[in-house]
């Protein structure tokens, strides 16, 4: 059903004649994708906001269900790739509930690491700042609560900031690291988010993006499609009573990132090219779980 919808939408876009039959909103503004639906740009961020407001309280549970608990390993891999160090200024965008930020902080404060370090580094640990930026205040609220549960409530290293990935409120050349885990497909203008990332990073700073992506291996792809389109929304409905949001989440993965004019889904290489065009060097990507998830990385100079 979903593939039928998708192919119809693609045909509509390709066929200029049929633009007469499109809803007015698409004609007048630059359309973007909301899952498999096409919506006006201005509306996308609002609709995404609504999705996350409704899923915020159960976000962690749904992550576990959708990925079979694997999302924890993926985030662990992201943080180990980042190699955090004491005194780091790090920005985690779209990291509302704080998963990545907590892991980074724990990595830096790890006792084993401290045993190996120089005495002077103890001061540096105090200077560490992890900024968690999210556009949705509900997600931040959930994150702050989780921080307290984990014992980071009083820790001044964690700073919760409400902000938009496309217009960050941080200064130029102020961050050592930038991560965005499972958030970039929700951004309306990915190029803007990437150039903002480039702006705030210092020289030598790293950009890391963890994202679900396309699976091309034939049988694996079908199984994955079945799991995504049938199982996940059904489970979403059972657990949270909100099928629509999970339908969006699953569809947005398929459409990442939106390429309305061309009508095809972006591959990892294309995303890597976008990252390079934003100015990053040494752009690479690593596949996890046979391509279901990829970590793209780049360095700013």
């Amino acid at each position, binding site marked *: 059903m979903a593939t039928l919808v998708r192919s119809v939408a693609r045909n509509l876009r390709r066929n200029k004649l049929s633009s007469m039959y499109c809803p007015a909103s698409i004609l007048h503004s630059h359309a973007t994708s909301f899952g498999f639906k096409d919506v006006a740009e201005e509306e996308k961020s609002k609709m995404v906001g609504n999705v996350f407001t409704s899923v915020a309280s159960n976000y962690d549970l749904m992550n576990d269900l959708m990925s079979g608990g694997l999302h924890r390993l993926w985030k662990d891999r992201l943080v180990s*790739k*980042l*190699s*955090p*160090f004491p005194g*780091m200024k790090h920005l985690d965008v779209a990291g509302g509930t704080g998963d990545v930020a907590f892991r980074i902080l724990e990595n830096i404060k790890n006792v084993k690491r401290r045993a*190996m*370090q*120089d005495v002077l580094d103890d001061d540096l640990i105090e200077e560490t700042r992890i900024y968690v930026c999210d556009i949705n205040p509900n997600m931040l609220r959930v994150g702050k609560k989780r921080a307290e549960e984990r014992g980071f409530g009083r820790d001044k290293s964690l700073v919760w900031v409400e902000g938009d990935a496309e217009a960050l409120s941080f200064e130029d050349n102020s961050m*050592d*690291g930038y991560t965005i885990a499972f958030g970039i497909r929700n951004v309306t203008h990915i190029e803007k988010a990437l150039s903002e990332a480039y702006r705030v*990073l*210092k*020289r*030598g*700073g*790293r950009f890391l993006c963890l994202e679900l992506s396309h699976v091309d291996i034939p049988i694996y792809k079908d199984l994955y499609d079945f799991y995504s389109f049938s199982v996940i929304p059904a489970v979403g409905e059972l657990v949270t009573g909100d099928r629509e949001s999970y339908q969006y989440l699953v569809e947005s993965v398929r459409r990442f990132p939106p390429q309305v004019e061309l009508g095809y889904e972006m591959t*990892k*290489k294309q995303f*890597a*090219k976008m990252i*390079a065009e934003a100015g990053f*060097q*040494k*752009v*690479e*990507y*690593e*596949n996890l779980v*046979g*391509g279901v998830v990829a970590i793209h*990385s780049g*360095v700013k*100079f």
Partner: protein
Amino acid sequence: MYRSAAKRLLPAFYRRHQNAISHVRILAANRHTRFMTSSATGNIPDHNPIPPPISNPADCTASSSWKEEERTHYTETDEKFSSRTKLSKAHYKDEEARVLSASLPHVIRFGWTETAMIASARDVGVSPSIVGSFPRKEAALVEYFMDECLEGLIDIIESRKDLKNLIPSERVAKLVRIRLEMQTPYISKWAQALSIQAQPLNVPTSFKQRAMLVDEIWHAVDDDANEIDWYVKRTVLGGIYSTAELYMLTDSSPDFCDTWAFLDARTKDAFDLKKTAQEAQRLAEAIGAGMGGSLQGFIKSLHGLNHVWNG
């Protein structure tokens, strides 16, 4: 390390462009980390690096023909990025090389660790996050040091003429000694470097580097009067080098004189054995010419066994 391989393939070309060597060295040094990165990521599935933009420093015009060759190694995607290279942005390889070379003074204090590299990144003025982008962090530092030492050794070989006056066994001993002396400032932490090189992920690269080193030394010694297999020569010298290196770790004599004595004794042994083996072979040939093929064949098989024992 690939530069020395190329040097052997194009010796005449290389000798003619002596003045371009320093520029080539910058390019080659930059390629080291790149090739080591790609060779060591075999275990990550579908790891697919996009080649970075090439910066074209103005002083490389002297070695333009050498650059032609290097350019063929890159893929077409570089052409698309070439417009950006004209904005003089620092190439990431240069930055990485700067951070690594600045780390060496810190190694004495911190060992071959990320801490040393983080401290040096701060010195150089780059965010310490760059250390996270080195694929096998501490190994990158050790490998950089090994490459630097190899290049230093090549410089010394080319500049010093008095080495030609020595007999082969003494020349070998002298070159190994020169190379090991480069490690003396770091000898307190060298055991750590060896253990890093011995880790399974790092073994392919460290093995290649040592093979290159041994090849360079044999090339400099240039002992033509031999029928001995190239692999045997490599193995023998590799053995001499490694044992001398290990001996040096526990040597507390002034200026490592015990190590040098050990080294001289070992090279002498190796060359004596070689002579003995050659003499034995010649004797076998002489007898065989008289007695027919069967005895020669028998002695040749003994000769083969001898190599297996002593190689």
